[in-house]
């Protein structure tokens, strides 16, 4: 059934259809519409779940860790400062191998207070052991949220579905909302591999001395190594029923492209338009929409970007003293590959500043005009000093 849904409500709709049993969350703009809708569903009985209204994001993640350890399907959502406050427990959730799903709405961190789009919040959590999936539009929000549960439960790792503040969380789009029966076919109820049980007592997440800790970390990494295959299987099963598929990344017009733009989130939607326009003017340009950030899709990156003459990466995030985070990761992925085209890094759209067709065309032009990249990321769209 087609419905016009706000991006946030595409999340909540998916969570309801996933038959999540315990939700715990703490409000923060721009995540609020997600959890308000879930509260309503729990209150009106259209979702048979417990919503735990905790007093902080730290507790929200702790509560879903407790619930997931009890063997039920769990969900939370946050953004920006809320995610930063959860940091300790993001590590905890992944090392405890709990299949928690979280929607994370990309928002800037203060000071100064800024509620708008920026990716630094989620990317700063890159080492916490969460699978991270960046999505482009309302349909992908809904589909990816559903897939996230099946993926998380297949590999026993938590999954973060990441969507742009306002550009996606507060934008209404037509979305194909699946039938509950089809969702149930795609996502059967959770059969936890391990859970707390008085009939079979065990200790979870206990002390791990030097003699065992390293092997435990290695096991988490092995879990991550299984993700590409597991994700492909999840996407296959999803496509069988719903006829939609996204991939860990999507290459648009890359086959003969001399320059490839790498984009994420809603900027990829703008990018599609830019590619059409530039192609119609005869420019040999392509685009990669990067969806999966953890684990980083090194194989796909090498095979698509390796063939390009130049790569231009848009980062709506920044690592102070280094550069844009996607650019860093792409350079690292290409370095030991066979081909390594120069990677041009651009910073744009921080703290909610628009990334327009013009922004992306400017980035493309700058990349064409320069033979080698600057050592530092190039900041695009800065206001002139007054």
């Amino acid at each position, binding site marked *: 059934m087609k419905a016009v849904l706000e991006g946030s409500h595409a999340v909540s709709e998916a969570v309801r259809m996933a038959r999540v049993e315990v939700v715990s969350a703490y409000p923060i703009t721009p995540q609020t519409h997600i959890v308000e809708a879930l509260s309503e569903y729990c209150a009106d009985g259209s979702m048979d779940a417990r919503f735990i209204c905790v*007093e902080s994001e730290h507790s929200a993640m702790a509560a879903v*860790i407790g619930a997931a350890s009890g063997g039920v399907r769990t969900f939370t959502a946050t953004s920006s400062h809320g995610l930063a406050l959860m940091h300790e427990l993001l590590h905890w959730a992944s090392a405890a191998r709990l299949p928690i799903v979280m929607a994370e709405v990309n928002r800037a961190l203060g000071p100064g207070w800024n509620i708008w789009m920026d990716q630094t919040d989620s990317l700063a959590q890159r080492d916490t052991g969460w699978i991270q999936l960046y999505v482009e539009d309302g349909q992908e929000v809904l589909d990816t949220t559903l897939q996230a549960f099946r993926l998380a439960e297949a590999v026993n790792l938590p999954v973060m579905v990441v969507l742009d503040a306002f550009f996606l969380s507060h934008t209404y789009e037509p979305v194909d909302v699946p039938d509950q029966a089809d969702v149930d076919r795609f996502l059967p109820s959770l059969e936890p591999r391990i859970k707390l049980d*008085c009939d079979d007592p065990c200790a979870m997440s206990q002390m791990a001395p030097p003699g065992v800790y390293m092997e435990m970390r290695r096991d988490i990494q092995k879990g991550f190594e299984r993700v590409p295959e597991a994700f492909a299987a999840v996407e296959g099963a999803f496509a069988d029923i719903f006829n939609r598929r996204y991939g860990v990344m999507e290459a648009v017009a890359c086959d003969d492209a001399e320059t490839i733009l790498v984009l994420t989130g809603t900027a990829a939607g703008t990018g599609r338009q830019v590619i059409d326009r530039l192609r119609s003017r005869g420019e040999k340009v392509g685009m990669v929409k990067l969806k999966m950030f953890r684990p980083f899709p090194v194989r796909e990156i090498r095979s698509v970007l390796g063939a390009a003459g130049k790569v231009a990466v848009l980062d709506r995030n920044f690592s102070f003293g280094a550069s844009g985070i996607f650019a860093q990761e792409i350079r690292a992925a290409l370095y030991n590959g066979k081909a390594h085209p120069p990677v041009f890094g651009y910073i744009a759209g921080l703290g909610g500043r628009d990334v327009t067709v013009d922004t992306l065309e400017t980035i493309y032009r700058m990349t064409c005009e320069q033979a080698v990249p600057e050592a530092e990321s190039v900041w695009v769209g800065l206001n002139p000093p007054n």
Partner: protein
Amino acid sequence: MTVTPPIRQTGDLMYPGHVGCPGCGAVIAMKFALQALGEKTMLVIPACCWAIIAGPHPQTALKIPVLHTAFATAGAAASGLRAALDRRGDVETVVTAWAGDGGTFDIGFQSLSGAVERNEDFLYVCYDNEAYMNTGVQRSSATPFGTRTTTTPGKGWKATRKKNIVEVLAAHRIPYAATASIAYPDDMMRKFRTARNLKGGSRFIHVYATCPTGWRVPSDMTIAVARLAVQTNIFPLYEVADGVRYTLNESGDRPVTDYLEAQGRFKHLGEADCSAIQAMVDEDWHLLMRKIDG
């Protein structure tokens, strides 16, 4: 003549081995608590000595399920686990958060307050050894006036009062809050049984647990010191129903110096300091009596 039945030694839910210090009051507290709670109990343990005492992977000192969790999270993690058990239709198992004073009075205070304000259906136990013992005897807000710890050393001994956690919990108007002591096992186990049977809301038990290592007392004095705390009214044993109905269980009339002089952590205190402590204890006692009478 009434005969106090002996403490049952059978059905112990702890294995003989654990890695606590000799004379650890927190270990004795666990032993009594589990005897009263029984095997349909799940523990949620944040960072504290008990996170270590329970044993390293792949061993465990406990025969019941244990969820170890981050330092500040006992209240929230226990809420989540309770929700999961409710979803599974398991209403019998008692979720019991088991935290030290640091994890309760300080870093875990927010999540505890949030959980009991929601009146989560769980038992929260604070075993109070009056400092951060696991990290080497640093002060907490449960450390009493006059104490030397590694962060209140020498002349910088702690010059502020201990936070009254039971009053704070009672102010949340939870169904049940109580103090308990390892020196009064019958009283303690009765309280744990009461708490176990009072399902449907938050129950809080504040257990006094001597730490011979951190308090600098001989390990065979654990129970004696705990008893002195009650007998001097430093730690009277009482219960609070619904935050308002107080019942006194055990108290005494010995001078605080009997208690203070038994412990190395108070050795530096002079007569005036001890009198000041006696005055504080008397004041707290009168406040408590007013509630019990009213």
